[in-house]
């Protein structure tokens, strides 16, 4: 006799309807009453068809319970939400992308120097990987290395028609002259090769002088500002070398930038720390008072026990506040109004496409970081680290090192993740976070599993609500590119 049981899934409700998120396919289905009753009953324990008939017989609204049961069983089995309990579970296929994998985004660390000394900085703080002060790397990338990097980027972008270059630091604008020349060179080389090159940068905002703003606006350079919120929040960790806060310096400059630079949406990138975590107040300040189009939040990357580290209960607090903001986002989106909470938007796009990741991000695959000396690393956070080097801009990508990295970091190797329903989106989380926390990039970020599952659940509910109440809103993700934000 066939005994049915559930397969990996996450059931959630939105707009008064039941939904199921399937793992590992990342498909989202809305369930009718019969299918939901079958699923809920099987979630308690495996059952035979006869036992399920009894469960469904109690329903007043299902007209022909036996026929509905058989059809619902067949459909749930067809999408692998349920299966015969003894049927073998197919192992996750371990498919390593074929090389050469086209490069989509190159992050260019044009300097490893900074005019701020934020205590929590992963590049300068207690958890830094590379000694940027006394190390062998030049403090500023030379014009020649930047040109070589552009050539490397265009060469490695394969058949892609668009290549993204993100300037990063240190404080990116400390090397503004090279940045300017690199953009001009990339435009020219891109045009010769029939490729469009897209530019963006991340800055702390301290060096946004009028001529810089003019250049960024003229050249349609996407800008992300690292800023933590209102004065008392910003000045706690984002300080100059002498300890004075940076808010009063950056706020007017950012307002100037927002006034002049209208060709691209400008976003703020907030690092959340142990301090008072008033996400909604930070969001209000940055959008309504400063005027940012979008605000994205990221918990600080740190070893446990640091003063700025978020304690375990802090993740619960953060989730509650994210949930409130996500609810605001939902109500705005139902009415087709803009809401700048970018975290939820990014996750919605991945949910809409049904992304099921073998790797947590594009690092080492479609995204690479380049250090000031032209060494190519996994991403900008590892730029300059010999242990995470994947080649040089002159010599190209070290395919053996790249393949070894992808082989070892595939989700199929992460046994901790193998039973987690959130793995299609998380896939173990940030390599750099893992390296900082556990000393190895391959380690899943177990300290924030509950937070990731909680956040994914919030986003699934927003997605379900939008699918019912304003499906047209989700259509915007059909053609949107999957370019990752750099943080």
């Amino acid at each position: 006799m066939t005994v049915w049981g559930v397969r990996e899934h996450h059931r959630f409700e939105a707009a008064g309807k039941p939904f199921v998120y399937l793992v590992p396919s990342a498909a989202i289905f809305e369930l009718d009453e019969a299918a939901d009753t079958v699923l809920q009953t099987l979630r308690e324990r495996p059952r035979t068809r006869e036992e399920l008939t009894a469960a469904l017989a109690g329903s007043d609204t299902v007209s022909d319970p036996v026929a509905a049961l058989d059809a619902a069983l067949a459909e749930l089995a067809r999408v692998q939400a349920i299966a015969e309990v003894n049927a073998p579970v197919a192992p996750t296929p371990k498919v390593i992308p074929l090389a050469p994998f086209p490069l989509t985004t190159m992050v260019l660390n044009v300097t490893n120097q900074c005019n701020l000394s934020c205590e929590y900085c992963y590049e300068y703080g207690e958890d830094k990987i590379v000694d940027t002060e006394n190390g062998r790397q030049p403090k500023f990338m030379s014009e020649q290395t930047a040109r070589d990097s552009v050539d490397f980027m265009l060469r490695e972008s394969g058949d892609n028609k668009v290549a993204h270059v993100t300037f990063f630091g240190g404080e990116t604008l400390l090397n503004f002259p090279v940045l300017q020349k690199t953009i001009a060179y990339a435009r020219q080389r891109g045009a010769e090769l029939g490729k469009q090159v897209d530019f963006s940068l991340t800055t702390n905002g301290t060096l946004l002088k009028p001529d810089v703003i003019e250049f960024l606006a003229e050249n349609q350079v996407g800008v992300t500002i690292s800023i933590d919120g209102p004065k008392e929040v910003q000045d706690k960790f984002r300080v100059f070398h002498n300890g004075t806060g940076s808010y009063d310096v950056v706020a007017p400059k950012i307002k100037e930038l927002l006034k002049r630079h209208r060709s691209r949406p400008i976003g703020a990138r907030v690092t959340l720390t142990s301090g008072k975590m008033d996400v909604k107040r930070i969001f209000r300040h940055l959008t309504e008072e400063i005027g940012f189009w979008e605000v994205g939040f990221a918990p600080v990357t740190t070893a446990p026990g640091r003063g700025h580290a978020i304690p375990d209960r802090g993740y619960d607090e953060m989730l509650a506040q994210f949930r409130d903001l996500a609810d605001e986002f939902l109500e705005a989106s139902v009415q087709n109004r803009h809401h700048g909470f970018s975290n939820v938007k990014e996750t919605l796009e991945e949910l809409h496409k049904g992304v099921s990741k073998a790797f947590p991000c594009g690092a080492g695959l479609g995204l690479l970081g380049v250090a000031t000396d032209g060494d190519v690393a996994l991403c900008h956070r590892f730029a300059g680290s010999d242990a995470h080097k994947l080649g040089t801009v002159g010599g190209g990508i070290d395919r053996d090192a790249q393949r070894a990295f992808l082989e070892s970091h595939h989700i199929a190797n992460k046994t901790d993740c193998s039973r987690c329903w959130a793995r299609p989106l998380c896939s173990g989380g940030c390599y750099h976070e893992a390296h900082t926390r556990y000393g190895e990039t391959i380690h899943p970020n177990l300290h924030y599993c509950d937070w990731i599952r909680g956040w994914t659940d919030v986003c699934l509910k927003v997605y379900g609500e939008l699918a019912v109440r304003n499906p047209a809103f989700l259509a915007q993700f059909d053609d949107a590119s999957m370019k990752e934000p750099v943080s």
Partner: protein
Amino acid sequence: MNHLKAVNRKAARVERATEPDVVALQRTGPPLLQPHFPIGCSLVFSPGWEADRTGGTAGLCQPVERDLFDCHIGCYWPAQVPDQLNHAPDWTSKCAAAQKDWRKIDLIFP
């Protein structure tokens, strides 16, 4: 699908990829996990199944009596008939046309 509605793009792809293919055999009991591909007779337009998917004969392409010859002579399918090559060569000798003469076929005991 009637009880599940694909919401995101991946769900639509899963639905397309698991579209049931040819399902011709009579089925009772638990639903099929995999699409079922009957092979043999249906491929030569001579189905030969004893019953249609509802358990009756109305849905068959050919009269049930035709099964006799199509299944054990024209097809490799092991029909439940006597071994006409070795054991009962004359088994159907009185049955020129199965539609008319099927009653004349004798019982054969091994």
